[in-house]
């Protein structure tokens, strides 16, 4: 399936996938990673997070990971998610697309040097 069908990604989906790019995480971990990376530019609440995850799983971008749970994680939280190969390709493609757009913005002098929002 042509990964271009999945583009463009919604900001929320993109950030979730970015969070998973470093490796499998569970819900709490994704939340933490997104907050860390995006700060207060994006709000991600539990309900929308899992909604995104469900959709991404349905589209074959994300999958449930086989990770042995550690002891201090509560039972409900022990489901881990990871990127599939397709997912990895999709998030990379999105990143390239955004980079291209950012380059155009830079050429148009929209960006002050060093100050890129994020």
């Amino acid at each position, binding site marked *: 399936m042509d990964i271009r069908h999945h583009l*463009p990604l*919604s900001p929320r989906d993109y950030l979730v996938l970015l969070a998973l790019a470093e490796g499998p995480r569970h819900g709490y971990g994704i939340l933490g990673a997104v907050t860390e990376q995006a700060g207060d530019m994006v709000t*991600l*609440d539990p*309900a929308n997070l*899992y909604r995104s995850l469900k*959709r991404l799983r349905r589209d074959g971008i994300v999958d449930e990971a086989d990770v042995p749970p550690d002891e201090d994680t*509560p039972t*409900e*939280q022990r489901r881990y998610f990871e990127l599939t190969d397709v997912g990895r390709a999709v998030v990379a493609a999105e990143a390239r697309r955004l980079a291209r757009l950012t380059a155009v913005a830079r050429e148009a002098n929209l960006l002050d040097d060093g100050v890129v929002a994020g």
Partner: protein
Amino acid sequence: MIRVVVALYGLALRLLPRGLQDDHHAEIVALFERTVRDAGANGARAACAAVAEGWLGALRAVPGAWRDELAGGRSRLEWGPRGERGKTMSIRMTLRQATRSLVRSPRVTLGVVGLFGLGIGATVTVLSVVDGVLVRSLPYPEADRLVVVQDAAHAWPDFRDWQETVPAFEVLAAASGQTFTLTEAIPQHLEGARISAEFLAMMGAETSRGRLPSADEYAEGRRVTVLGDAAWRRRWGGDPEIVGRTIPIDGIAYQVIGILDAAFQPPDVLTGTEVDVWVPVDPADPELTRHTRSFNVAGRLAPGVSVEGAAVQLEARAIEFASAFPDLYADDAGEPRRRFAPATLADETRGDARGPLSILLAGALLLLLVACGNAASILLARGASRRGELATRRALGGGRRTILAQLLAESTILAVAGWGVGVALAVGGVELFKTLEPGDLPRIGMVSVDLRVAGVALLIAVAAGALAGFVPAWSGSRASPAAVLRRSASGSRGRNGSGIRRGLVLGEAALASLLLVGALTVVQGFSELTVIEPGFEPDGVYALSIDVGRELDEEGRARVTEALLDRLGAFPDVHDVGAGLNVPFEVAGGNRCCWRGSLALEEGDGADAWVHPVTPGYFSALGARFRVGRGFVRGDEADGTDPVILNATAAERIFGGATEVGQSVFFGSRRLRVIGVIEDLRHWGPDQPVEAEFYLPYGTDGSWASGLTFALRGTPPASEVLRAAVAEAAPRAVVGEVRPMHAVMARSLARYRFYTMVLTVFAASALLLACTGLGGTLLYDARLRAYELGVRAALGAGTGALAVRVVARASLTVAIGSGVGLLAFWPVRSRLGALVPGGESLDPVSLAAFIAVLAVSAGAAAWIPARFVARTDPARVLG
């Protein structure tokens, strides 16, 4: 505290789709709790913020999650609210696209809106009438508990008795419609009612000035009256000083104590529609005996009492009366002859309006269905022409449901626009209806198009839009891209749903035929009514109402009447003149007037009949035919024996065989001598059954009545001459208009003429629409097949033959459709009798007319398409 918040959050999540809940509900809740606790570490405010964020997020997630669910994994073309993503198009978007598409094809839009407008306009018009006449509750307090004591009119003492002895009613009142004379310099008619003191209060009437009558007016020596608002403005110019003044009614001074509020509508079945003056009855009036039965009695049921309960109590009174007053209330077996059965005022008011109105409503709905059929045909054709566009959209990933939704939205928009047009048309239609209606429908004056009816019509319109639009939308959304692209490559050919369209036209033909045959049988029934033998000779006969005034006593009235007869008969061109309470056909619409009695061979047992006091000359003026004997002459009453004339039915009932002049009958305890038997006069109209009637001389038996109708045979003089002559003989008399007898007869049939006309209009419209639909479909098909026709013509098939085939197709469709229509008509034809008596028989003449009309319609429908086909030029089509 946190537990509660989390629990509530968990509840809110239940709004999410099942699948998401099953997969992740617990996780989402756990995550929420953890984030809140984490935030709580930074203070209460942070915790609250986390809670709020979680909550809002959950609410925001719901619509999105459902959208994901329904989109079912379709690929997206582009992000954003536009674009074909299954059901992601909002309703607003769908409507906007539908509107744009409709605006782009203005002819289709206007045509379909016009069709819906016509069908809905007719439906709303009839619905408004049905609502105003049948459905709306009467404008009186607790109207559903108002009840009328039936069996025609009652005597005042009976009414007073019921007031005391029938606890089923919390209040009982009596009223009797009557004409009075305002006895001023120029005497004038006043429509009015004699009422018991509590009547107006019971009906919830209020005064704009002054007060209502109390129970002790007469006890305290006052003669009072209340004026109706319309009469107050018309006759007294809205003079506010009128309250307190006296006015002369029938020669007696009555003090005006109040003016009724303009909003009050008199109950027609109790008092008549127009009441100018309300006159309380003097309870001590010696004329209020048990023998004069002239009051309508109505009351409000006591709380918790049903109509059946009241019926039981009234029946008990009937039995009491039968034993207390046997000659008046019992038959020869001692059983009560008169049953005082209660009926709700609502039922009495509606009377027999339900039958005709339901048929008219059915006619309007059939017309609407035919209009829907035409609309559907047009939409189908339009859908076929948009095949390419719709198929392309689907090829690009457009959801079938989106397209279906848009097509349905288009037909719904058209239907709603048609509703607007229809309601506007109906406003005019209702006014037209009220103008043309001869005044026989109860409460017709208050009929108007109101919000409730418009609301119901909107529902009907939406249903019609769905009905008309569904098949076109379904077939339009099925446009398979491959098939369409293949087709457009090879040139436009193909059927394009012609099977459906043919079915539509067939259905329309059936519906229109149903309406047509119904209209024809009703027309037939009506024309039969107009030629029914009336029992007299109406040519050259004129009717004239004269009220000699109630100030005179009986002797005085008899004398004045004689003087009038002499004066009128003295005119050179008047050959015969006579008078009675009314002339035949004058009392119409199933009503009866005015006096009922019984005749018997032996003293005691009797056969009920209508009693008519008439003057000498009555029968000869009308041209009634005598089987035996003669009419009254002056001096009949003087020779000691009381004469009576019977009609054939009464004679048959009493004497069985041949009746001879001189035989005796008993009228109560009076012995009467039969001096003549006339052929039955259709006194109550051609639609009513013939009843037993007998005639007494006005001088002895009728002069309690001051209002008479004079019948003149010949040519009456000009109006002013006539009035002068009447004024000579009877100075205080009020004279009406001279009416030819044929006009009186036509008036009695007016309601049937009206219903027939309305139904015929519906049928003609439906037929026109069906023809247009058939013609349009044939032409459309011919255009589509132009290529094929061109080939055929080039190969030598005569275009004439092809045109004949078109005509044959049209005829076949009409034939099958009309056959179905006739079949559908058969089981319901008896219902048409409610519209026009005798309107249920399909006789050969109507059938022949039916076939003729259909043949012409088929021909008309096929005319243009056949010409088109016949003129096919192969060179132009193929080249």
